[in-house]
């Protein structure tokens, strides 16, 4: 029976290893609704609600005691959410208005989820924990058992929209050999706990919920590829040595013949910086400064910004740090940066373009960076997002240098900038290619559109062609060309990028070992061959397949 010849799904690999096993789904939680039967007197329902939340907290605390380690911290914190007085007060308000009891709690929880979501990053990912409290309380109120981890008695790949800590905490020693979630980011519990348990895991994988239960799926926790019903040749044993488990390579990144390729980290916060600085990371290729500005009514002043930047610079000692100036837009609005509504925010006033109407925001940021560099007695690289023309790059460079910043660059996200890379590099010191946006703008495909995922594949030859133009311009000018998009984290694509002339790759720190090992196994001329063949392919899939085959030939011959 030809089952599901779905193409390979793609998410973010957050815990390395390759396995294949039948798919098993986490049972869906109870969904509450305003149409549920309303309970007894509000006073009695208030008591029931309180008892349910206390029972949830007691259960989570007991699991925390049994789990130990990072799981215990997470479960204890989730228990504290269940006992939160503000949450209960909000639910009681909904109860008083005649809302069914479990739904009153759902509404209160969603209120907090919206606020956590708005904060972004680590806090936004805690909404899963909070919703889990609601699901558990709803099950308790309804007198039904909580859905749990499937345990069919044979290895399974666990699939869920997202996993709550209480789910993941019971994974150890069970039947689950890999995890794939539709949602979740690199700091979600799935990522943290799968890493701790050594289970391959892929998060943020759209389309996985459409794969039926029982279908064998191949999960690559390094590349983020999830292949339903893989061909026999790709069905490695669930516990077999994973081909993408790289042997550890030490030292700075380079090709087999010694061409240096700086392997840097993408960070967003001081915490990220400290975590990345503790690894072999050679520095920061992309410091997204948005986090400092989110959820602020007023702009953080120069001193506050300088303190944050200095903390990041200090964490990395003498290692290179590239800071990207604020990348806001009408889809990522900030209260102190009014941009108005736009029909098409991706093509609107965003990134460096916001500096025309709000120059002081950029000037403050540049002043703070200069102060942080002076205060830590080291250099810092600064670059602007969303640059389309040489004039924009030049204006930015003049301003940054006016603040005393010596190394100034721009992001290459717009095809126009890629095509004019040679001229851009006459006015800036380096460029960094954001492959996600470059893909979106080259292919005219919204990054958020799941239906257009195939167009957003970073292996699209058109995107590789543009990277090649930039790489060639960098070589001609003798100036660094970096890549700081998702593409840099794919070990095979990383080799292709180096072959196209890229001199540094910036990824999540966890992706570094695999990329390091891949480059270590290929000489610079081999990378160039890979790049040529990938560009000669007719499409993204063909480019990937050709590059993989070429690598196997070259490594096998080598």
């Amino acid at each position, binding site marked *: 029976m030809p089952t599901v010849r779905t193409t390979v799904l793609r998410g973010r690999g957050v815990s390395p290893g390759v396995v294949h096993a039948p798919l098993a789904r986490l049972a869906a939680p109870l969904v509450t609704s305003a149409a549920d039967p309303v309970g007894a007197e509000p006073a009695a329902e208030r008591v029931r609600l309180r008892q349910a939340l206390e029972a949830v907290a007691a259960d989570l605390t007991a699991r925390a005691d049994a789990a130990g380690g990072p799981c215990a911290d997470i479960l204890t914190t989730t228990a504290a959410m269940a006992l939160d007085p503000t*949450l209960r007060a909000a639910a009681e308000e909904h109860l008083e208005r005649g809302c069914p009891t479990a739904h009153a709690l759902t509404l209160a929880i969603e209120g907090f989820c919206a606020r956590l979501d708005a904060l972004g990053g680590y806090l936004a990912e805690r909404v899963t924990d909070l919703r889990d409290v609601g699901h558990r309380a709803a099950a308790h109120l309804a007198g039904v058992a909580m859905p749990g981890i499937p345990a069919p008695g044979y290895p399974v790949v666990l699939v869920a929209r997202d996993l709550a800590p209480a789910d993941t905490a019971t994974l150890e020693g069970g039947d689950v050999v890999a995890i794939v979630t539709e949602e979740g980011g690199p700091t979600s519990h799935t990522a943290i706990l799968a890493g701790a348990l050594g289970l391959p895991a892929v998060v943020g994988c759209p389309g996985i919920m459409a794969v039926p239960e029982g279908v064998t799926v191949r999960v690559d926790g390094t590349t983020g590829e999830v292949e339903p019903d893989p061909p026999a040749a790709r069905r490695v044993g669930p516990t077999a040595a994973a081909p993408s488990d790289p042997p550890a390579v030490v030292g700075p990144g380079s090709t087999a013949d010694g061409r240096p390729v700086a392997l840097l980290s993408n960070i967003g916060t001081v915490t990220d910086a400290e975590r990345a600085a503790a690894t072999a990371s050679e520095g920061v290729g992309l410091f997204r400064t948005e986090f400092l500005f989110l959820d602020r009514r007023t702009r953080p002043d120069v001193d506050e910004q300088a303190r944050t930047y200095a903390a990041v610079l200090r964490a990395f000692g003498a290692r290179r740090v590239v800071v990207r100036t604020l990348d806001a837009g009408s889809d990522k609005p900030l209260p102190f940066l009014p941009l108005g509504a736009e029909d098409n925010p991706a093509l609107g006033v965003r990134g460096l373009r916001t500096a025309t109407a709000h120059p002081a925001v950029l000037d403050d940021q540049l002043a703070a960076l200069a102060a942080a560099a002076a205060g830590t007695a080291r250099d810092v690289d600064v670059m602007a997002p969303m640059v389309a023309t040489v004039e924009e790059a030049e204006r930015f460079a003049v301003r940054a240098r006016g603040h005393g910043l010596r190394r100034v660059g721009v992001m290459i996200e717009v095809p126009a900038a890629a095509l004019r890379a040679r001229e851009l590099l006459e006015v800036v010191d380096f460029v960094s290619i954001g492959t996600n946006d470059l893909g979106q703008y080259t292919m005219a495909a919204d990054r958020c559109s799941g239906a257009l995922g195939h167009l957003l594949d970073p292996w699209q030859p058109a995107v590789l062609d543009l990277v090649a133009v930039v790489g060639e311009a960098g070589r001609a000018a003798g100036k660094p060309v970096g890549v700081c998009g998702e593409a840099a984290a794919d070990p095979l694509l990383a080799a292709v990028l180096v072959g196209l002339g890229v001199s540094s790759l910036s990824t999540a720190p966890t992706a570094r070992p695999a990329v390091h090992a891949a480059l270590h196994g290929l000489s610079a001329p081999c990378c160039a061959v890979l790049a040529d063949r990938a560009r000669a392919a007719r499409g993204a899939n063909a480019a990937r397949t050709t590059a993989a085959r070429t690598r196997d030939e070259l490594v096998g011959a080598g």
Partner: protein
Amino acid sequence: MPTRTVTVASKVGLHARPAATFTRAVAGSGLPVTIGVAGKDPVDAASVLAVMTLGVQYGQEVTLHAEGDGATATLNELVALLATDHDA
């Protein structure tokens, strides 16, 4: 009405776990305590969700306010808690 201002020493800010540690200490005191940051309204310091949604980061100043018997001593303990990085 004792009020104290303290710089948060937790390197990760008052995110989930440090917020939970702090709110547990507040709840343990039995006193009404509020926590505020510049630009936002103060919130119930015993509420882990309210504290998390303040989005307090490392190095940011927060203002604590308590009322009742032993408010000064309670604030001293809470200030000491926030001024220590428990992951260090």
